[in-house]
């Protein structure tokens, strides 16, 4: 089968037409769903900010449900499928072997995601992102989730097909390049994760259709978090792969110890699912012994992997910049790093915030003994906005500034705005996350419409300092939405109006 390759002039990457189109459309879908997810986030954060309290009751839960779907599922997974195509074809210099399957996966994800959006906005699924039974949604909601999950599963399967056939065609010799290896870890976890999704959403759909009488709530939560938490490790693996690729593309940096980095990815595959148990720490199903073994001990094997990456990547940046001559003192390389390049600053902000905000709090809040003072408070929301937003989303935003020139052959517009966008968004998310975690330390609950309990038969008053922390969350949210709008404008603007890169 003939395929048409072109060579990117700035990187020398070989890109075939089929891969290029698949990456383009997955990236466009990612940008569009982030735009919707961000708009919903604005409604949610302005409702949780007590002095604004914007939305009425039903719309708060409706927007919160859809914010989780669009911002956590759709934006991130569409971007990851774009990365699947990029790392299994472009990075290896070989073609997409099953483009028809890529389009089938894309169509299923688009139809499933669209169906979920319509049903939730029509009020048919005010069940939150987790849709815990016995909350019951319209059957079309579960069908939408299943279609999206099957599409994503096919997307990850494409990765395996491409890398097997690429090796046959000489795309790589012994092992995959590190960026592709990271996406291999993401794809393996992706298959395991989506199998959990099928195992729980198909019975729940049958229950919603009244074919089966009952789904056990405890069993639902157990299997759901086999989908819910490992899917965050798909995000972490993809984010770390993006970090390695960004260092290589922007600085020409190489991993300081490739074997160690590969081992860290394997640790993700082996041990991340045991950490999923922190979602079940107040459930009566599992024994205390079981919870402690998994979340006080085994969890640290997955944490070790993140620590290895979080130190190895800055080390490769330092080595690369020292080779460029920035050798004075301990930190000249840090001062002279390309901070005006949004691809670099996006990656650096992502590493910093993922480590200090998401990482430290994840280890502490996820530990069985500590968890009880944070469980179901807004501190948990602050933690995962430190991981999947300040970490994954910021890293993906930074990588977009590389993908658009490589894949769309367009220059980034408004370069001045582009250079400040990661700082604007990163600062906003950091304030949002710290505000949430601080308010959560005073017991402010998550997913709660009215923490003043107005009209309730019992009254409860939180420590007055929470007003300051929730205002900090609100201001951070507004800053982040501003940075997000700028990213969407820069992304779509560059794709449509960016100067064509001729070669």
């Amino acid at each position: 089968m003939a395929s048409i390759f072109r060579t990117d002039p700035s990187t020398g990457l070989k890109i075939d037409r089929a891969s290029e189109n698949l990456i383009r459309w997955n990236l466009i879908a990612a940008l569009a769903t982030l735009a919707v997810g961000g708009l919903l986030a604005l409604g949610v954060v302005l409702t949780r900010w007590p002095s604004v309290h914007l939305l009425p009751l039903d719309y708060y839960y409706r927007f919160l449900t859809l914010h989780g779907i669009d911002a956590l599922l759709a934006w991130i997974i569409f971007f990851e499928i774009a990365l699947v195509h990029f790392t299994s074809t472009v990075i290896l210099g070989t073609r997409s072997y099953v483009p028809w399957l890529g389009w089938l996966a894309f169509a299923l994800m688009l139809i499933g995601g669209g169906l979920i959006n319509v049903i939730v906005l029509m009020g048919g699924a005010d069940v939150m992102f987790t849709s815990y039974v016995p909350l019951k949604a319209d059957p079309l909601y579960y069908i939408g989730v299943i279609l999206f999950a099957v599409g994503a599963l096919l997307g990850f399967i494409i990765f395996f097909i491409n890398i097997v056939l690429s090796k046959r065609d000489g795309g790589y010799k012994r092992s995959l390049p590190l960026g592709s290896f990271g996406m291999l870890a993401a794809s393996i976890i992706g298959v395991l994760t989506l199998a959990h999704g099928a195992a729980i959403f198909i019975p729940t759909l049958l229950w919603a259709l009244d074919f089966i009488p009952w789904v056990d709530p405890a069993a639902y939560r157990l299997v759901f978090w086999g989908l819910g938490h490992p899917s965050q490790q798909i995000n972490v693996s993809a984010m770390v792969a993006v970090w390695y690729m960004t260092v290589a593309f922007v600085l020409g940096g190489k991993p300081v110890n490739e074997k160690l980095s590969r081992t860290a990815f394997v640790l993700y595959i082996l041990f991340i699912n045991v950490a999923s148990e922190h979602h079940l720490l107040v459930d009566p199903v599992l024994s205390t012994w079981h919870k402690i073994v998994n979340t006080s001990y085994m969890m640290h094997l997955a944490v070790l992997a993140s620590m290895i990456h979080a130190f190895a990547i800055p080390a490769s940046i330092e080595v690369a910049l020292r080779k460029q001559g920035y050798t004075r003192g301990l930190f000249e390389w840090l001062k002279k790093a390309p901070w005006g390049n949004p691809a670099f600053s996006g990656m650096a902000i992502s590493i910093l915030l993922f480590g200090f905000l998401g990482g430290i709090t994840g280890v502490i809040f996820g530990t069985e003994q500590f968890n009880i003072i944070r469980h179901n408070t807004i501190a948990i929301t602050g933690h995962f906005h430190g991981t999947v937003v300040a970490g994954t989303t910021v890293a993906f935003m930074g990588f977009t500034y590389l993908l658009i020139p490589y894949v769309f052959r367009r220059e980034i517009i408004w370069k001045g705005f582009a250079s400040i966008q990661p700082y604007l968004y990163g600062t906003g998310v950091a304030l949002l996350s710290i505000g949430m975690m601080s308010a959560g330390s005073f017991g402010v609950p998550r997913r709660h419409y009215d923490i003043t309990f107005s009209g309730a038969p019992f009254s409860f008053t939180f420590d007055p300092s929470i007003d300051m922390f929730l205002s900090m969350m609100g201001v951070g949210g507004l800053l982040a939405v501003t940075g997000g709008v700028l990213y969407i404008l820069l992304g779509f603007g560059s794709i449509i109006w960016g100067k064509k890169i001729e070669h």
Partner: protein
Amino acid sequence: TVEAPGVFVLALIFLAVFIIIWFAHLKWLMDIWGVQ
């Protein structure tokens, strides 16, 4: 022999922050439990 001395220092700072926050939570928990 240290390829990235700057990152070595940054890593120590990160670990120090990590340990301080970890022990702050332990102290909090011990106060709740009434452990002296």
